[in-house]
């Protein structure tokens, strides 16, 4: 079991948590557990329906998508301060769109998504701050995905006679 002060000090490394009001932070910590993870540990599979999300405190977690004939394709890695499993925070719960595997050992803070959603419902001030954070995280993810899609380093068809 992990105690609250450990979780608090782990979260304080993440700027958003460091700026939260104490009452918000404490309520979030009540819905959290601290997990040590080792390399190779599978956090969740594609299709899982667990109702939690994780903030990475230390280590690295990779997201993979399985493509028939190609196998698991790594699409993203989450580093300290990043969030994994944001889909659990949105109103409609659906299954995980990617699998998460720990690549470098470390620590994660896992949050009970239902409790956090309830906090948002009861306290709209908190809800706004939380959803704004989620929106920023998703925006960043979208940017990464778009740039990966644009394949900015790829060789276009080369035309002749120029260096």
């Amino acid at each position, binding site marked *: 079991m992990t105690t609250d002060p450990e979780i608090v000090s782990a979260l304080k490394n993440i700027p958003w948590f460091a700026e939260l009001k104490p009452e918000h932070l404490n309520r979030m910590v009540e819905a959290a557990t601290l997990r040590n993870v080792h390399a190779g540990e599978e956090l969740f599979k594609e299709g899982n329906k667990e109702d939690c999300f994780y903030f990475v405190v230390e280590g690295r977690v990779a997201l993979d998508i399985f493509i028939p004939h190609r196998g698991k394709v790594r699409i993203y890695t989450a580093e300290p301060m990043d969030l994994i499993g944001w889909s659990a925070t949105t109103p409609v719960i659906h299954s995980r769109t990617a699998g998460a595997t720990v690549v470098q050992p470390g620590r994660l803070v896992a949050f009970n998504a239902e409790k956090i959603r309830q906090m948002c419902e009861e306290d709209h001030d908190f809800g706004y701050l939380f959803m704004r954070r989620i929106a920023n995280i998703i925006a960043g993810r979208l940017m990464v995905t778009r740039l990966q899609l644009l394949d900015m380093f790829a060789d*276009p068809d*080369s*035309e002749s006679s*120029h*260096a």
Partner: protein
Amino acid sequence: MHNKVLNINSSITLPKSEFDILLASLRELGYQTVGPRVRDESIVYVEVEKLDDLPHGYTSEQGPASFRLISGGHNRYFDAIPGAQSWKQFLFPPRAHIFSADKIERWTIQPNEEKPPRYALIGVRGCELAAIEIQDRAFLRTDFHDPVYRARRERLFILAVNCLHPAGTCFCASMETGPRVRGGYDLCLTELDDVFLVEIGSELGRDAVSRCQYESASGFVQSAAEKGLERAANEMGRTLLLDDLPSLLTDNLELEHWNEVAKRCLSCANCTQVCPTCFCWDAVDHTDLLARNTSRERVWDSCFNPQYSYVFGGTTRSNIKSRYRQWLTHKLGTWKEQYDTYGCTGCGRCITWCPEGIDLTEEVAALREEIKA
């Protein structure tokens, strides 16, 4: 015979019959005399040896996409406003061999060691002289001198001519480059019906006329020339307001009007070829099949050339709108920031020789209108 000592900045009158002696003196001094001649229903700049080689009695009627030479109606030699060619071909030749590189045992370079030509340009108008001075700023800088340009420019003799009868696409008055020639010449003449009024601009100019039979310029001749110039300044084919340039162009890169002109422009590059100030060039390499005897050539290029902006991955200006915009915003916009002068001298060639008749004075006015609206 004369008994006057010629001073620089003094004026003389030269009977038209003496002009051939002037040309002959120049050739004896080692110059190739080049000037306007009628050829193929247009006016080209080629070798001229006598006054009668010039477009005697011709006028050019010019408008958007239109050039007509009309013969008769007067007796003058320098009245026909020039055609597509400009003097830039003599200082900045369309093709210039720079060096050969050959591999015998090792690679060695043979730079082009041809003696640079000495040109005497006969009949340089105000807009054209201003254009030469603009190209001087591009090719002769403190950090870099173009050696091809410099060699020809150092050896250049300029016989300028004041325009008394501008043509339909002229707007040198707006650009303050004419019709009166402003400095920078060896000789400057104003053609009246019977005589040339000649202003001496340099020692070279003075030497060139020294064998001619001239008179001192009478007050009557000088005032006739003045009146002619004043009248000419009011007979311009077009005007271009400069007050809000360059920022009118450099700050308005996304106006709707750019799309409008893009529909008409063919990106044919005519305007850049006929323009006396356009200086873009390309380096072209030639080789034999074994890549042992190679050469480098410097050739004219144009920002309308689709490959002009090619980098690996594509061209940065792949559509006509962006290329036209580049040309105009450079010519009347960023050029000023680069060289402290506009890139346009109001000669009107780009208007006359554009197959679509695109008129940059109208384009600037249209952009101005769009902003006001």
